[in-house]
């Protein structure tokens, strides 16, 4: 595994070159569409045809500026932020409480209830999307943030509870016993000991839930009707519908809507990668 250097010292070993070539090809496969999108936003429609790969001849800043100065773009991001934040906060509260109960309190039916909850891992929200729509409608939540947030929380619970419960169980049990002897209640212990100790896992779960909510499309598509509430994945589809062939504008819009994700990813890549893969593995 650690002989890459050794291998490269042998004069006729072509393996490192094949590896480098392979990596280069894959990197191009990943990067070219993204770069073309970013640069395309700086071109005119005509130049997209004549100069698809190169840098723009003249940088058309107004494509981007037009979008940045429109209320629409900010409205979309704001809506996404509100929906994602509410989803994260609610999921963390509800799931950590349940996970604590499953981890630390022995009661009849505990494992049965846990299996009941983890059933949620077995199928996607899409299977029940129509009845879910009817339910949200009957609750009067259609076309409101919570019409999206509550189903999202519900469908994220299974994974969140499992991750949190595992972490809670690994906290030293003596702490809890000692606290109980000292007359501390479960609720106090949860608030003052468990939660502060669980920041890493809360961050992980929060990240997963946030990314899922930030990117989600189907639930908002079905539950939201007025564009004042649209999160950005819906907004970007509407934008594309309106500007159908004006690809330079659409590309600029895509770039700007992806910007928050990419910035966040660059600054918090470790947490995001760890979170998303851990969520997958342990969930």
């Amino acid at each position: 595994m650690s002989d890459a250097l050794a291998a490269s010292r042998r004069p006729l070993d072509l393996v490192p070159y094949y590896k480098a070539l392979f990596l280069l090809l894959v990197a191009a496969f990943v990067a070219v569409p993204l770069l073309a999108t970013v640069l395309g936003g700086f071109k005119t429609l005509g130049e997209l045809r004549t100069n698809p790969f190169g840098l723009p001849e003249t940088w058309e800043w107004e494509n981007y500026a037009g979008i940045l100065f429109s209320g629409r773009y900010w409205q979309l991001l704001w809506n996404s932020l509100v929906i994602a934040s509410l989803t994260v906060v609610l999921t963390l509260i509800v799931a950590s409480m349940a996970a604590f109960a499953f981890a630390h309190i022995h009661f009849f039916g505990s494992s049965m209830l846990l299996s009941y909850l983890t059933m949620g891992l077995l199928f996607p929200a899409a299977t029940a999307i129509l009845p879910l729509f009817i339910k949200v409608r009957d609750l009067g939540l259609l076309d409101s943030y919570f019409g999206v947030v509550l189903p999202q929380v519900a469908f994220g619970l299974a994974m969140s509870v499992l991750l949190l419960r595992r972490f809670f169980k690994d906290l030293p049990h003596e702490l809890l016993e000692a606290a109980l002897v000292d007359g501390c209640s479960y609720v106090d212990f949860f608030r003052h000991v468990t939660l502060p100790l669980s920041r890493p896992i809360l961050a992980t779960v929060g990240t997963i839930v946030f990314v899922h909510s930030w990117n989600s499309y189907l639930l908002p598509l079905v539950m939201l009707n007025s564009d004042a509430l649209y999160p950005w994945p819906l907004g970007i589809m509407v934008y594309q519908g309106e500007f159908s062939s004006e690809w330079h504008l659409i590309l600029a819009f895509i770039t700007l809507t992806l910007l928050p994700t990419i910035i966040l990813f660059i600054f918090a890549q470790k947490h995001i990668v760890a979170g998303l893969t851990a969520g997958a593995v342990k969930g």
Partner: protein
Amino acid sequence: MTERSGAIVMRSGRPVAAAYRKKAIDGRLTALLLFLPPALLLFTLFVVLPIGEAAWYSGFNWNGFGKPTKWIGLDNYRFVFDTRGFGTAFRNNLLIIAVSLTIQLPLALTLALILAEKFRGSVALRMLFFLPYVLAEVATGLIFSFIYDGNYGLLASIYRAFGAEAPHLLASTQTSMLAILIVVVWKYFGFHMMLFIAALQGMDKNLIEAARIDGASRWQVLRHIVVPLLYPTIRLSIFFAVVGSLQLFDLVMPLTRGGPADSSNTMVSFLYNHGISRMRVGFGSAIGVILFVICVTFAITYKRWFMRNE
């Protein structure tokens, strides 16, 4: 953890026990009553009930207004299976799984084996490859609908550079699914790669060292030690590929909306196009129930057969 797993005892008789123990039981009850209901309520209301209701609604011919009244038994299931588009959607889901197994998984594994080593740029490349997974499916779909666009797209430019007329990949029943499969690989291989890298880094290096000292070649080490050690991760990766395929929707909508002629629907986009957007609640619910049965059957069998120890 601890060996006693007593049920909550709420007898009125008070045995002589340590005072703290009783208090702990009361405390437990309070805690349970406080901690469990929100999760159970939300889950029941928005996950379990809708599934049950899907089964109920699937027996009706209903446009979603008012209450369902026109009971038609299992007809909706017959309609679903009679619709050619559903068969295509099912086949497409299988196709996505096949491509995940034959192209995406080997690609991810190879890259993981290369990038698990530390060299200059390895971390940057890992991040680059993982980036598509973080981007929203909708945006990814739009980016590629630009790439594939027959007039302004990158692909068209390449064809024009060679003096050929650009194909409209998304506009032909023959190629629409191919176009989507390419995007699927683009978007998800990095995630699987990261799973493998995580597994490789957690691997016991001594085994490999020992084998090398015993004179095993690099290929032999890979074939007989590394890959077998990765089997659990490979099984996991397959599991995610299948589950991901079964829920794929966001990517399809901006690219083809499932068309042309229903050639590139997945089961979920078929459900959207033929159920939700036409408000055929019964028909759509029937598709949902079928999808549910497939998902649950798969998850349970797969876990039982392949992931028993994990």
